[in-house]
């Protein structure tokens, strides 16, 4: 026995990790008799013997006790569905067993209430978070990239090696050669995003901006209104009398809020769904209108034609709020500007003083509120000027001669030009383009114009067409002509992001802004040499013409150039970047896999992490604290950590915190010198040895809850309380949310309301809702007004592929969940028209090869009569890992090299590179393909 005891002691010494508190272990080992054998138990702290409450005789006995909870935490799912649904999270023995919707929501005014909120994905998360897809430990690649061979490494090893590579790249190529992409999985968790924003501000690495990068940037809205964020609460739907659901499918994508549409319908609102395919939303709507894919703008312009032709316009509204009465020279198609009339003004560059034709005085007069210079720093011009017309009665129609420095020239109004443009889209002409009957077009135009208020509810799909900006401009035009931007229940309900001042305050605190943020679309175009893709798929002529404009824009300094230094190291946090790039394999091959080092920071494995060199595990939704603001509901939502992070995963804040600490440590150990960095002309001194002290504000910030509290304290509109108080109630209503649109006090407020209600100038060149863009490039391409242009096609391929957000996943999250898959067909499927399929000898359920010049992928044929002939439809988000050859629909979406010239226009008032407002979208719709039956796989 003595010999064995000695052996036990030796074994104990060799054990690398000691998990038990010494006393409890000794007690147990003594009782169990295992100590004599040197066996060390690891997992429990238990009594040697137990007295049972009642004898055990069969397995049913363990089921007789009530399953009780140790804790019920407040939480939600920090994913980009904009739902912000409050959940109760039930915990027992350190495991989340189930979740339940938190139901105590209020309403706004006399509209239905917001709760309960949730969907099947959220109610499934307690199981998904324990699924096989979870990344539980830091992993290092040991095989070739993409081979799938990994080894588990310690956080210490992973962070040391990553920090060393980071320093290597910065010393050799500068911080701009490192990109730290943060997707929506992370950026919607405000404290996590604030932590990352502080890190990138300290280090100067490049942050690709994914709003435009995934084709979600409403540039058409910005072009017209000078603001991107224009949406109200979802309850505004109930106030509307006519809702056009256009480029959206809320029954699928807005599950917690779709009830507002149907409640409104039962209350008398006409809900008109406009989509090429018969969607679940269309199924429940008052009317479904199905234009051919990509012809929506023609339909919108035909509605404009009807509204003008039948004099259904709201004349006082458009006289005051829009540029439609502004005078335009017929010789140059340019606005009449003050510099046209005065040499002094030419010298003074008064190119933003515009004219109206006053019917009372029968002369051109300066439009009130124009001529404003850009606001001085910290001063908002909307607060000290007005677009109030006073005694002016602007003419909408007419032609006049005015005296200019060029002599007498004819002028007319934007409205006159608009009428001419609309003549190209009479309902009959539009019917030939769209396939929609002229009578239906006229009827929906009348219904829309006569209903007061009326709204257009739209998703981001419009932004994903090359000419989606034109469609959005026509949306706003429809609303504006009928006076439907401003009143409750009106407007373009497309997007509204919170103004979380505390986020940037945290990022810049004590440092100042030194962030290098870039357009992901442009970044990809240059890093992936996407002009070659366009040449291959769309032809040399188009590729070179558009690239010529691209280069001209850079030469003119309208947009920055990202191609000077190569991309060497990439971090992917909260995004699955290799999933959604619209370039087939090209981005993966030429921009992604050529990186010297790839680090994926993810909760679940996907194609991006598959190709990474290091995969760092992130805590899932119920394992972390954070705060979320989503403007569709008037609430702020908390995430409280219900259980500790699984395995060795950590929340984003902790990862960023620990990485920064390691970066400083290695910078000191390697004697890295401080360096000067030029960001947008600003000279920044960066010293990585101090990075950690800066990040923590000299030790004041040690936990994500410190960041959350900072954000609560410094963001107007969030009721002031402690994190603990907020965690106890789960959610709290924001200030300024008594109406269905948000007042100024709210963090979700849209400034457009002040322009409408208080007559403050819009932040456009003309200080109005601006429908006429007289930039040379817009005129060159015939896009000075909203219009319709045919979408691009790939020659020889007849079918247009449409896509949309899925019911059973949020982007790529939950797409691989086994239960969700049982609610679908169990594998990626593509909806096809039965006649198209039969013509190709395809039966429902067959394996299909979908192909074009760009590439091919395989999916199951899913017959649906709701799909028009000539098109296919596929719900998005399927990760390439779920497909044959790890190739998803991106294989045939070859649009990554299509940078629309007008999206790079600049030196024109509000138009020109402006991050998160004016930048080219990556588009996903302008292509065609074909399919054929493939061998079963």
């Amino acid at each position, binding site marked *: 026995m003595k010999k064995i005891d000695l052996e036990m002691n030796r074994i104990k010494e060799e054990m690398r990790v000691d998990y038990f508190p010494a006393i409890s272990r000794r007690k147990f080992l003594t009782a169990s008799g295992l100590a004599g054998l040197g066996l060390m138990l690891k997992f429990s702290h238990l009594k040697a013997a137990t007295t049972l409450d009642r004898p055990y005789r069969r397995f049913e006995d363990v089921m007789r*006790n009530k*399953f009780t909870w140790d804790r019920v935490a407040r939480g939600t799912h920090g994913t980009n569905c904009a739902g912000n649904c409050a959940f109760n999270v039930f915990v027992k023995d350190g495991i989340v067993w189930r979740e339940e919707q938190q139901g105590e929501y209020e309403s706004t005014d006399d509209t239905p209430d917001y709760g309960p909120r949730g969907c099947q994905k959220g109610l499934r998360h307690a199981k998904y978070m324990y699924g096989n897809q979870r990344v539980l430990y830091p992993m290092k690649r040991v095989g070739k990239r993409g081979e799938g061979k990994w080894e588990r490494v310690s956080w210490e090893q992973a962070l040391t090696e990553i920090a060393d590579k980071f320093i290597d790249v910065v010393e050799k190529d500068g911080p701009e050669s490192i990109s730290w992409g943060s997707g929506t999985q992370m950026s919607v968790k405000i404290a996590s995003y604030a932590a990352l924003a502080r890190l990138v501000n300290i280090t100067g690495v490049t942050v690709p901006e994914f709003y435009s990068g995934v084709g979600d940037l409403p540039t058409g809205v910005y072009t017209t209104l000078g603001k991107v964020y224009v949406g109200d609460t979802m309850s505004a739907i109930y106030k509307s009398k006519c809702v056009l659901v256009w480029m959206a499918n809320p029954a699928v994508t807005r599950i917690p809020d779709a009830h507002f549409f149907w409640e409104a319908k039962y209350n008398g609102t006409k809900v008109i769904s406009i989509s090429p395919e018969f969607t679940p939303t269309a199924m429940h709507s008052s009317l479904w209108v199905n234009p051919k894919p990509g012809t929506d703008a023609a339909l919108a312009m035909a509605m404009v034609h009807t509204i003008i032709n039948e004099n259904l316009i709201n004349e006082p509204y458009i006289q005051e709020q829009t540029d439609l009465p502004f005078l335009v020279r017929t010789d140059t198609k340019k606005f009449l500007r003050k510099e046209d009339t005065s040499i002094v003004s030419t010298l003074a560059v008064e190119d933003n003083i515009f004219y109206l034709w006053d019917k009372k005085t029968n002369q051109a007069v300066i439009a009130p509120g124009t001529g404003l210079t850009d606001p001085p720093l910290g001063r908002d011009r909307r607060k000290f000027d007005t677009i109030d017309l006073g005694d002016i009665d602007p003419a909408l129609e007419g032609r006049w001669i005015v005296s200019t420095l060029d002599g007498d020239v004819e002028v007319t109004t934007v409205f006159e030009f608009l009428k001419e443009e609309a003549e190209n889209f009479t309902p009959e002409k539009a019917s030939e383009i769209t396939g929609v009957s002229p009578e239906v077009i006229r009827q929906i135009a009348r219904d829309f114009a006569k209903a007061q208020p009326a709204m257009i509810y739209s998703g981001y799909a419009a932004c994903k067409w090359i000419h989606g900006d034109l469609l959005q401009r026509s949306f706003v035009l429809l609303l504006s002509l009928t006076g439907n931007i401003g009143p409750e229940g009106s407007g373009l309900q497309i997007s509204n992001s919170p103004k979380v001042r505390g986020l940037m305050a945290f990022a810049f605190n004590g440092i100042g802004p030194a962030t290098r943020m870039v357009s992901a679309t442009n970044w990809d175009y240059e890093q992936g040499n996407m002009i070659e893709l366009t040449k291959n798929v769309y032809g040399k002529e188009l590729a070179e013409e558009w690239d010529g404009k691209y280069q001209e824009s850079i030469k003119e300094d309208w947009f920055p150039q990202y191609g000077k230094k190569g991309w060497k190291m990439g971090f992917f946090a909260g995004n699955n970047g290799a999933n959604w790039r619209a370039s087939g394999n090209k981005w993966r091959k030429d921009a992604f896999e050529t990186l010297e080092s790839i680090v994926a920071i993810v909760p679940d494995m996907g194609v991006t992490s598959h190709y990474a060199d290091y995969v760092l595990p992130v805590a899932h939704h119920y394992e972390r604290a954070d705060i979320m603001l989503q403007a569709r509901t008037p609430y702020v939502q908390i995430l409280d950590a219900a259980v500790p992070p699984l395995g060795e995963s950590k929340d984003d804040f902790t990862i960023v915190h620990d990485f920064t600490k390691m970066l400083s440590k290695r910078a000191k150990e390697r004697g890295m010198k401080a360096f000067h960095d030029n960001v947008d002309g600003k000279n920044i001194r960066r010293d990585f040895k101090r990075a950690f002290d800066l990040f923590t504000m000299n030790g004041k910030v040690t936990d994500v809850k410190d960041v959350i509290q900072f954000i609560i304290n410094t963001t107007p509109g969030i009721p002031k309380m402690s994190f603990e108080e907020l965690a106890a109630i789960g959610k709290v209503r924001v200030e300024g949310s008594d109406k269905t649109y948000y007042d100024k006090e709210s963090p979700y407020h849209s400034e457009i309301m002040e322009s409408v209600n208080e007559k403050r100038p819009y932040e456009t060149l003309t200080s109005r809702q601006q429908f006429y863009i007289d930039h040379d490039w817009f005129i060159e391409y015939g896009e000075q007004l909203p219009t319709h242009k045919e979408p691009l096609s790939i020659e020889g391929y007849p079918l247009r592929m449409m896509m949309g957000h899925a019911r059973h996943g949020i982007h790529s999250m939950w797409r691989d969940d086994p239960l969700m898959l049982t609610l679908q067909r169990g594998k990626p499927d593509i909806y096809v028209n039965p006649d198209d399929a039969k013509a190709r000898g395809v039966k429902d359920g067959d394996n299909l090869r979908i192909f074009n010049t760009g590439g091919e992928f395989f999916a199951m044929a899913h017959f649906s009569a709701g799909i028009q002939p000539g098109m296919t439809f596929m719900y998005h988000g399927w990760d390439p890992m779920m497909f044959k050859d790890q190739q998803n629909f991106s294989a045939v979406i070859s649009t990554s090299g299509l940078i629309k010239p007008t999206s790079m226009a600049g030196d024109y008032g509000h138009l020109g590179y402006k991050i998160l407002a004016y930048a080219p979208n990556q588009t996903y719709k302008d292509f065609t393909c074909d399919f054929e039956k493939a061998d079963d796989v």
Partner: protein
Amino acid sequence: MKNSAIKQSNPELFARSAAYALFSNLVSSPHEGHILFKDIQTVISAIQKDLPFQIDFDSMTQETKAISKKEWQKLVRSYSGLFEVGNDGPPIPIRESAHPSLTFKREEVTRYYEYFGYEINENFQWESDHLAIELEFLHFLCQGGMTSGDALSFQLAQKDFIERHINLWVSSIIYRLKKQTTHPYWLSIFTTLNDFLQLDLKWLNTNLDEVKEAI
């Protein structure tokens, strides 16, 4: 009752208990502490003679004899590559609920733990259905059978827990291991474990009849 008294009074139960502890240790993550291969023989020597059935530990011990410390580090890495990390999760899930057909069995596992008072340290609660923990629970039940005065309850639970849980998926680990190119060390451990489980289940069935008759 002192340890020696337990062992003397019921050497078979003690040996079974120790065997479950040994297997729990062997299939646990070596990243979190693990018995070293060269000590396996010491433990086996101490328990084998008292087990109520004959089992061949030779293949397991033979595989370990020739392994150097350096090779052990490779084995540690290979454990991760097999059981902890991978593109679609680890190639061989080592948690019961990670096997698709057994996802919903976890609640019952937890109920067993709660019924018998088995409490897991906070760090490991998330993987309460890890094979190592389920084996440790069997060890715990063996201990309870020796000391609680209610041997029948604890032995019935051992039988049910093996049949309703571990036995449902250990064989699939072996099946998947055979498809992998890896060191035979792991296959030898899981094969021996499976053999042990079958023999122990047989012994439990026989022994339970005797215990019931005695009651």
